[in-house]
């Protein structure tokens, strides 16, 4: 079934690692640079994320996302560089505008944080199927109902888009003009929403009945369609990551 996700189907050790370990990695990548706010630590974390993305063979897919993120970050750099209250040392001058060292320093910190968080999430999103992620969370004790809601969102949106285009086709077939200028398009689009929404409501009712027939609300423990994906070193990696987080805290407190 079609599903919206950025998941890239590849073979790599990053893909093999279970989703829970990837979640712990995200935690690690966010927490450690906050606990130890030095540039070196941030750079190391960004470096690790980039290496993992490269190893998974999904680097190309991250470019548009990083592109968008950088667009936002450039404004941060400009605003902080020009207007941060602590600004004292002028670094260079562009026409009437002076860029200050303190502001740029701060902007670099923010940039690294953001890139770091986005990178860590990207590893999870690009190398894990949403359904696998949800399944592992359910195995860890998340309610299967919530799991179902999450998975179905990924599926219902493309389904609605597909039914929108079939309904549009059906009405075009009966002489409704949908091609042309913006006004024609808007006029055509609005009445089409009715059947799409109504259709998905009808589907929801049927879906609910189909689920109930298959014992969705039954209280017996659920079984899983897929065999649990276990990666030989998961436990080791998880322990190491948690240890590093604890280590970072200890470092911060005692040294």
């Amino acid at each position, binding site marked *: 079934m079609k599903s919206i996700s950025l998941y890239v189907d590849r073979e790599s050790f990053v893909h093999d690692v279970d989703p829970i370990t990837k979640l712990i990695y995200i935690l690690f990548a966010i927490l450690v640079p906050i606990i130890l706010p030095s540039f070196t630590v941030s750079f190391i974390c960004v470096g690790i994320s980039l290496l993992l993305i490269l190893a998974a063979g999904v680097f190309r897919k991250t470019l548009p996302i990083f592109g968008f993120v950088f667009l936002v970050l450039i404004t941060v750099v400009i605003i902080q560089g020009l207007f941060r209250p602590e600004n004292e040392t002028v670094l260079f001058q562009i026409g009437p505008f002076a860029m200050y060292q303190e502001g740029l320093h701060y902007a670099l910190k923010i940039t690294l944080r953001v890139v770091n968080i986005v990178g860590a999430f990207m590893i999870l999103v690009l190398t894990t199927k949403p359904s696998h992620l949800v399944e592992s969370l359910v195995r860890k004790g998340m309610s299967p109902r919530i799991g179902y809601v999450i998975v179905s969102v990924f599926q219902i949106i493309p389904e609605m888009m597909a039914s929108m285009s079939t309904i549009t086709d059906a009405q075009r*077939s009966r002489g409704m*003009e949908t091609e042309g200028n913006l006004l024609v398009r808007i006029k055509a689009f609005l009445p089409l929403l009715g059947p799409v929404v109504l259709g998905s409501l009808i589907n929801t009712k049927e879906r609910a009945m189909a689920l109930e027939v298959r014992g969705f609300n039954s209280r017996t423990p659920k079984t899983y369609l897929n065999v649990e994906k276990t990666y030989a070193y998961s436990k080791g990696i998880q322990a190491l990551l948690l240890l590093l987080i604890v280590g970072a805290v200890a470092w911060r407190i005692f040294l």
Partner: protein
Amino acid sequence: MIKVSNLSFSYHKAEGPVLSGINLEFDRRSTAIIGQNGAGKTTFVKLLKGLLKPDEGDILIQNHSVKLKTAAELARTVGLVFQNPNDQIFKRTVLEEAMFGLLNIKMGRHTAENQAIKALKLVNLDDKLEMNPHDLSLSEKKLLCIASIVAMDPDIIILDEPTIAQDHAGKKIISQIIKELAEKEKLVMTIIHDMDFVAENFERTIVFNEGKVLLDGETRDVFAQKDILQEANVEAPGITQLAEKLGFEHTILTVEEFIKAVK
């Protein structure tokens, strides 16, 4: 009426063509298009209807290229009844649903209402004019969709899987409509998996397989070619197969023919 020359089409360039090198001409004979799922039948009729544009080749409908027209402009000439009635049903009452296309092609309200009621009579829905179409049964919904296209009076009518969810009475109504349209010199085409219905109602049959035309001819001749049909994973109607196994000399298409031959 329709001339298809060297038609090719693909949804995604990488996945290869869905249809390739199709050359066909359609006259007024009622025509059934059969073939396995994924053979390209629905894609083909969507191209005829202008919902998709060909990658290569051209389609001429009454000597006008479909490439130059929008699907909406083609609505007067070509009517397409979709497979799933829920995709088509759109309005709050049966009557409005049947009038929708007519109003789109700029027909006056009064005439549109008369035409719509006439078409609804054909499918025995004229006693349910004020009902919400979503309260109809699936088979009634399908008949309503057929009526709403027939009401527009196009020269070419394409039915995508008309017999799904129809009982014997429903099939009889559809069969009757096909006959009446043929009498009015309209071209009726269908995509269908119900071979008995094809044998009983369509003069010409085209077999699609993997995006190409495998067989094309009089329905009787097509169902006689057992080996080629097998290649397309299509089976002749039960009665045709029975007659063949019993060693009948001619290809039998309907139960009536079978009984006549036995007598």
